[in-house]
């Protein structure tokens, strides 16, 4: 660890003059720049996909988890009383932010797809629905069920689990896919930088030879190459990410009302993570370069 740390210190504060021994604009540098740029560009999309899925999951989870319904089945004359009682129970249930009985119109709207709009609900012995909006933390569904069983027989809690779980599962898969793409991209970057370092050192065999001949130590040579490549990776990925962000920003915004897949766009944390990506790429490049350089320099005598 210590040699890596000292290398890192040299990387940042080291002798800038020593850098000049590595060709500044060789084609391997160019290549490193380009590869890390392209990968970063793809990474932004992977990230956007992950985050969009994550957002979607949270949204659905919130919408479904934070709302629940209580169905009160009772003879018409007892219905009002039981509704009253249910609301009272809910007032003393911790985690419930709001609870209110649905009006007839609202109930009709809910049933319309099945029963049509022109059905007069007030003629039917329908159950009364009570909508609950929970606080962030949520309420204890089992506890509430038991209390209702005891205090308001005929009131049944439905917390939408049946609807929510498969959707959440699907979104979870998408999210996994997005993160998988990200991991893949980092692996590709690490592999490419490793290969790039090998290529760079091989292409600059003459530079290494001259330096060796004149008495340069391994760490001197390594430092110069590592710095160049790390910086190139950093710059390349920054450019790639900027381009990626620009592309995403330029994509036609999606009509939010559809809600299902709210497009591939970045918000808040997405922008921040994106701007952190170059550093992650830099670190990946740094570690890969140091490893590759160690190996190559040990081989060249």
């Amino acid at each position, binding site marked *: 660890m210590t040699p890596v740390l000292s290398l890192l210190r040299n990387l940042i504060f080291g002798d800038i003059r020593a850098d000049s*021994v590595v*060709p500044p604009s060789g084609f391997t540098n160019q290549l490193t720049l380009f590869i890390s740029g392209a990968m970063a560009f793809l990474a932004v999309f992977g990230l956007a996909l992950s985050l969009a899925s994550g957002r979607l999951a949270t949204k659905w989870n919130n919408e479904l988890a934070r709302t629940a319904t209580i169905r009160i089945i009772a003879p018409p004359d007892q219905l009002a009383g039981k509704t009253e009682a249910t609301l009272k129970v809910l007032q003393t249930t911790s985690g419930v932010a709001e609870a209110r009985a649905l009006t007839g119109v609202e109930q009709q709207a809910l049933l319309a797809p099945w029963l049509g709009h022109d059905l007069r609900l007030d003629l039917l012995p329908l159950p009364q629905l009570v909508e609950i909006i929970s606080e962030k933390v949520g309420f204890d569904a089992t506890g509430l069920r038991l209390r209702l069983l005891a205090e308001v027989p005929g009131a049944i809690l439905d917390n939408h689990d049946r609807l929510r779980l498969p959707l959440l599962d699907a979104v979870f898969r998408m999210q996994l896919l997005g993160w998988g793409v990200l991991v893949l991209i980092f692996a590709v970057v690490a592999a490419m930088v490793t290969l790039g370092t090998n290529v760079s050192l091989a292409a600059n065999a003459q530079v290494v030879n001259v330096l*060796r001949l004149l*008495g340069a130590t391994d760490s001197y040579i390594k430092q110069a190459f590592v710095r160049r490549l790390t910086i190139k990776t950093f710059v390349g990925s920054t450019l790639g990410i900027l381009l990626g962000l620009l592309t995403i920003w330029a994509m036609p915004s999606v009509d939010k009302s559809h809600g299902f897949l709210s497009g591939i766009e970045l918000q808040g944390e997405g922008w921040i993570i994106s701007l952190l990506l170059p550093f992650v790429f830099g670190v990946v490049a740094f570690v890969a370069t140091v490893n590759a350089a160690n190996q190559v320099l040990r081989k060249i005598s």
Partner: protein
Amino acid sequence: MIELDAVAYSYGGGEIFSDVSVNLEQGSFYFLTGPSGAGKTTFLKLCYGGLLPTAGHVRVFGAKVCSLERDQVAMMRRKIGIVQQDVQFLDHLPVSDNIVLPLTISDRNSDLAAPDLDDLMNWVGLTDRARGLPEELSGGERQRAALARAVIMSPDIVLADEPTGNVDWEMSKRLLYLLTELNQMGKTVLIATHDLSLIRAAKAQVQARVLRISKRGVHLAGANL
């Protein structure tokens, strides 16, 4: 300074050297000669640790080269000025930066006064070319730049491989003078060359010994060449 003790070397095929024992004494001036392909370059590489002997030992400054760490070899090379036959530079740096590169590497740039550098550049006839890139040099100019680079640290030993192969006779004598000057300062000099007239010219200026490669051995040649 450099001691070869029962050294043998082979690139994988036949042996180039077998059982060579030579001692290069401090402050002496040597020529190494022999026909093309005899092993002059190989001998020099053995001297500075560019190749390790397949048998026997090479001692430089008293230390066995084969048992040195990589960093110790680097430190050793800082005290040896080397002119390779196929001269290599850092192609992206100007000629003058290439010439002071040994100082840059050992972080001793401040040791060199600018007038000294100018003198040296002038002596090897590169003053005009100092700001150019190495690939813009002519063949002879490359060799002169390489020699300048080898002597700039005033190293304890100078090993030069055909340093005058591409320069005219006048320039050869100037380069030779540079090396005899160093020798007079007590440095050890070894020049590999096939140019017998260079050796003859040197003998007039300095007490030079001639090593001749023949039959896989290295022998001190007599007075007659």
